[in-house]
């Protein structure tokens, strides 16, 4: 076989492999591929490991329901304000109408918007909770996210509870423009009341947390915890690269990078989150 033939043969084989489907849907669901190290992990093992890669510790994104199941004491979570949903105040249409985008996000996630709010126990400590869901329109904050976060803070003010917000968001929702922008002010004003009342407010920043969420309730935590490997920032990486016209370090805007610069209190692996938060809650109880 000449070198030329060998290359030809190799190329055609590669093409055939590329077009092969790896089994049917059911079979592929049994295995998950790690985005980071590319290893295949039995989905069951991945789930048992809190959706953290068993070989490289890469933390997969998880939705709000999964997060609540992992983080809140079994059977203690009482959801509130799930009936709050968005309209289309601006009649916003880009490449698709906002209302259509909402319908498909609802179908995809089973949620009415990008945050779940309620009250539940963490290691036995009753806490007001807001957990964002990146799968619902990129976890973007419009009127509903702002309203629900504010309402759960008001619940905490009334019942004298600590508040924990777990973020995952691309930022403010463009389809509601200035109304979304004002949610930054609204939620931050609500947090200021927690400060006034000396009620503990903690935020857990998870992959990814950006823009209007970083620049409002997300980083107002009395204690800020960032989940291992999460990317957190104000401006997106691409915007910064375009502005300054230079390459950014690979670990730029990761949880670990931010801790190095004094921007977060704690970087935690997913498996340690609950116990760490439990301890903090208990230490702040005596007043």
């Amino acid at each position: 076989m000449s070198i030329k033939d060998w290359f030809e043969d190799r190329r055609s084989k590669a093409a055939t492999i590329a077009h092969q489907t790896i089994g049917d849907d059911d079979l592929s669901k049994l295995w998950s591929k790690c985005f980071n190290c590319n290893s295949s992990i039995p989905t069951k093992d991945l789930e048992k490991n809190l959706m953290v890669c068993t070989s490289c510790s890469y933390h997969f994104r998880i939705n709000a329901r999964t997060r609540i199941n992992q983080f809140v004491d079994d059977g203690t979570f009482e959801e509130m304000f799930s009936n709050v949903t968005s309209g289309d105040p601006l009649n916003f249409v880009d490449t698709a109408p906002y209302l259509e985008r909402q319908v498909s996000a609802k179908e995809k996630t089973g949620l009415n918007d990008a945050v779940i709010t309620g009250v539940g126990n963490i290691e036995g400590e009753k806490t007001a909770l807001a957990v964002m869901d990146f799968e619902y329109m990129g976890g973007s904050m419009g009127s509903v996210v702002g309203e629900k976060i504010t309402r759960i803070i008001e619940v905490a003010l009334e019942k004298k509870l600590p508040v924990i917000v777990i973020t995952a968001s691309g930022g403010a929702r463009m389809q509601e423009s200035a109304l979304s922008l004002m949610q930054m002010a609204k939620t931050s004003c609500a947090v200021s009341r927690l400060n006034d009342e000396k009620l503990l407010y903690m935020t857990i920043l998870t992959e990814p947390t950006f823009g209007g969420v970083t620049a409002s309730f997300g980083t107002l935590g009395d204690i800020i915890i960032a989940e291992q490997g999460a990317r957190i920032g104000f401006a997106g990486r691409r915007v910064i690269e375009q502005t300054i016209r230079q390459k950014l370090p690979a670990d730029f805007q990761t949880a670990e990078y931010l801790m190095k610069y004094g921007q977060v209190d704690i970087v935690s692996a997913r498996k340690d989150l609950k116990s760490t938060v439990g301890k903090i809650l208990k230490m702040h109880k005596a007043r």
Partner: protein
Amino acid sequence: MERVIAPLEFEEQLYKIEDKITELKTLSTESGMDLKEQIETLSKQALEFKQELYANLKPSQKLQIARHPMRPNFLEYTQLLSDDFIELHGDRAGFDDRAIIGGICTIQGKPVMLIGTQKGKNTKENLIYNFGMPQPEGYRKALRLMYHAERFNLPIVTLVDTPGAYPGIRAEETGQGIAIAVNLAEMAKLTVPIVTVITGEGCSGGALGLAVSNKVYMLEHSYYTVISPEGCASILYRSSDRAADAADALKITAKDLMGFNIVDGEIKEPLGGAHYNHELTAKNLSDTVIASLNELQKKSGETLKKERYEKFRQMGVVQEL
């Protein structure tokens, strides 16, 4: 014909009419012909056309006026609004951001803390002022000055004209998001009156970081939005050419935002925009701000704090299933 202010694209027809009038006037003087009637008619038509044009600007046209380099900038306003502005520099932690400037002055006899974002008139100035894009340290300086105002019972006036907070490496490392967030929460706690005027660009969290205020006004041709129309177009429409469409969709004008109770009032600009008459613009702005402060200062500090909270608390449009 040479002009002091270069016409914007949509103003060209107007300039053609005005050129015609000048031509007639020259002809009349040179030849001694009596063209008074024609000149008057044409002048009247020009004025009507002009009023019609500026009263019905599209959002994308307002955008061009809002960004006009000859529009008054913050330092010019400090001179136009008062004759005793004393700048107070620095965040007391190693940095003096030049995109946010603040200080004390008296406006119509009233001492105030005046803080705003500063843009340059040309590239050289813009390198100093970073094109009006503040660093985290700018927001921290602003907050330091607001605390000062709180301690000495000075009302706070902020003038906002920014394309947004700066997206840069160091800005991320020193906490751009945190600096803005802290301002939002801390402004909510103040008991002195806070009045904001969006004077040009009110873009995103970078603008809001100075605008959690009892009253928020907008100059007639300014805009206020969650993201620049260009940024929105490139993300949602996948093409920055669609910026004009995005400007429409984002509802960025004073009138739109008054409809959502986000903005309390529109301040008139001279015909053609603020850059045609800095003094008149400043006078209108000054009158609105002072009238507003006079009303607010009748209230107790706790009332002001509560009303500010309630104002932002009701913002947003939601439905209950």
